[in-house]
């Protein structure tokens, strides 16, 4: 995952399977950034995610509640077909806007 902070916006580019194990790690890293800076907008970029289960939904919803409590917003950017399917089944697309832009996910190869 790749974290980018510009002004009050935190952009998180995810490039791995999101399951119970990884959702906990992603949650910790994002919450640590939000704790350090006055973040008002959180953008999840899912362009590099080919697999996500309901743990990812819990993780997104948790960050939504966190940002909502401090008057911020969460956006879902570039979901792949697989990610979009579980997002729509969960219904979180009714409260979290989904966007598409041309910027592709540039993940560092570890």
């Amino acid at each position, binding site marked *: 995952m790749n974290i980018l902070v510009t002004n009050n916006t935190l952009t998180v580019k995810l490039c791995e399977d999101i*399951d*119970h*194990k990884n959702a906990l790690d992603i949650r910790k890293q994002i919450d640590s950034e939000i704790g350090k800076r006055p973040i008002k907008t959180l953008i999840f970029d899912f362009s590099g995610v*080919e697999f996500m*289960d*309901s*743990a990812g939904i819990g993780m997104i*919803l948790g960050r939504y509640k966190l940002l909502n409590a401090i008057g911020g917003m969460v956006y879902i950017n570039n979901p792949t077909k697989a990610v979009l399917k579980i997002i729509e089944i969960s219904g979180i697309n009714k409260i979290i806007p989904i966007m598409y832009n041309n910027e592709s996910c540039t993940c560092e190869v570890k």
Partner: protein
Amino acid sequence: MKNNYIYTQFKACAENEKLARQIIAHFVSDLNPTLDELCDIKTAVSEAVTNAVIHGYKNKAGIIFMSAEICKNEIIVEISDKGYGISDVEAARQPLFTTQPEMERSGMGFTVMETFMDDLQVYSKPDCGTKIIMRKKIANND
């Protein structure tokens, strides 16, 4: 090959969720599933194994049993644990039901399994464990 089966058992831990869905993905590849079908099956398996780790064994030590069978154009996956069990299966199967809201569980596990597979059966007994059986027909497997 039109009929095949595997039996596996592995440690109940978060690291093995990925392993479990990869095993099933390889196993079902004989049926030539579409990418969408493959993703559906992997997601359902991931939900079931995660449930066994978090709820079945409550993150404590345990063994998860996973078997799968290909029968003509259908895959049948059985995932079971010998953990705490579920006292009210009907309630647990409701969307958004979760016993661990503080852990940010979405309560969508059974809903996802039901939606992504053709059929889901859940058998559970408190202090004995839980067994789930999921089936999905692969449409174009010629």
